[in-house]
């Protein structure tokens, strides 16, 4: 049943109607709808597929995308270098990113350690730490589009949408906790290997 027909039937029954139509509410609901074609940049569908943000409602994802910065990088363009001050957290919207460590000089990239693909993310420490230094060099492996969120955006989000800001912080903390867990496992394995090697020697 359409909205108009519903109104017509209610009027025919002699029901008392509300004074006016809440256009602003309808507009709000329309904008909140993931099916809305208004400014369909694909961000909504993208973030719904990212596991980190799966506790976000449709409307929260819509608001979250307003705080993001779209940055386009050409193939081999430096995103940031090891040792640079870090302020932001990036999601790979299109393309891929290579990570390098142990850079010895300004022009040296260092050793390749990891390739990050679409829907993966990096740089979360930059968002949380007060004085962050990038621990790796990030280079666009191909023409890449990143969606970045930076410290001022997080502060603004916490001020304007505290519940959503807290949710996002919790998710970021979870990412870091997972990475810490992985690191701890790796350290345990490495320690075992060192002990075995020491025994052999």
């Amino acid at each position, binding site marked *: 049943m359409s909205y108009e027909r519903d109104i017509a039937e209610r009027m025919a029954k002699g029901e008392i109607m509300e004074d006016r139509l809440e256009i602003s509410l309808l507009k709000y609901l329309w904008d909140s709808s993931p099916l809305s074609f208004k400014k369909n940049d694909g961000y909504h569908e993208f973030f719904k597929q990212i596991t980190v943000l799966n506790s976000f409602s449709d409307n929260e994802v819509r608001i979250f995308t307003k705080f993001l910065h779209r940055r386009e990088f050409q193939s081999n363009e430096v995103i940031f270098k090891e*040792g640079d001050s870090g*302020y*932001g957290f990036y999601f790979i919207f299109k393309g891929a990113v290579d990570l390098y460590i142990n850079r010895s000089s300004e022009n040296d990239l260092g050793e390749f350690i990891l390739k990050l693909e679409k829907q993966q993310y990096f740089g979360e420490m930059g968002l949380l730490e007060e004085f962050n230094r990038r621990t790796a060099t990030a280079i666009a492996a191909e023409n890449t589009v990143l969606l970045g969120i930076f410290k001022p955006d997080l502060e603004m989000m916490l001020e304007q949408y505290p519940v959503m800001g807290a949710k996002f912080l919790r998710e970021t903390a979870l990412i870091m906790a997972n990475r810490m867990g992985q690191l701890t496992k790796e350290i345990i394995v490495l320690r075992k290997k060192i002990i075995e090697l020491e025994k052999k020697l």
Partner: protein
Amino acid sequence: MNRNQRIKLYLFLSILIISTLFLVLFPRLTLPLGFAYIIYLMSKPMTIRLTTGSKKQRMSYFFIILIGTFFIFFPIIVTVYNIDTNFESFISDLNRTQLIIHDKVMSLQTKIFRKYGFQLNIDPVRIIMSKIEAHGLSLIDQFPNYLSLLFEWMLLVPVFLYFFFMESPKLSRKFLETIPNSIFEKSYVLFSQFNTKFGEYIIAKFIEATLLGAIVTIGLLIIGFPYPFILGFVAGVTNILPYVGPIIGLIPGLFIALLSKDPNASFIGILIVFTIANLVDMILVFPLLVSKIVNLHPLLVIVSVIIASQLSGIIGMIVIIPFIAFFKLLFKEIYKDLSVNL
């Protein structure tokens, strides 16, 4: 850096230079724009709380601007409307002051003649009055211009303010998109920090000025000094200028104490009131409110204020402090980066 990145960097630098030139070359537009921006930064924390989640954001901004405009321009309009009465009272006060100063100078000259036996042939009253007359005449000549400027500001400031509230997030995004990738993170964070510091500084100075003005007014009311509200207002406004402000604010009160025949207009009384007010400001208000925002060395502040006053007058004196705080932040960041990369 490849060719495309270089082009992006040059384009961004050109936008910056053109915008700066535009602002410098058209002060008639820059000043109301700057004034609207200051009000925008001051009211931003409050408006965010009032309008976040509101379905009628446009309407909320409109009412905030309407109320703000009323409170800023209403006292000015009342003053302008009563300008003839004010001018008449100013002229009569001027004549009376002229006579009082003349009497004081004459009695001083007689005293010097009696004590040391020589006649002073200076006439400070005539020199001062001729200067006041010249300034007064130029003020009257310029009055229509000032009036048209006032109406221009009354129209432009609310429009700019509405524009800042409604469009600045979108426009700042567009501007940020032009920043080359290599300097984006740092520029964005510094730009945001400057905005936050500038806004916080203006709010802190506004609260400080209001508190100081209130203390002076209450103090003068207690001792029964004439014109307590006007002198309190002047003390508050001049206090915005760091270090030199309190001294400038005291001058009108001292003049009244010297020239007025009112027995309550005590020289010592006003000195005590201003000393107490400034002590409260220095010991309590400034450390709690302002110094946390701009942690600068006093000598640097004094030198910057003097240079800014020479370059761009009172406005320069007010805005120079957050700018210096920003440059300190910028140099710190550059130094940090250099020390890591070396």
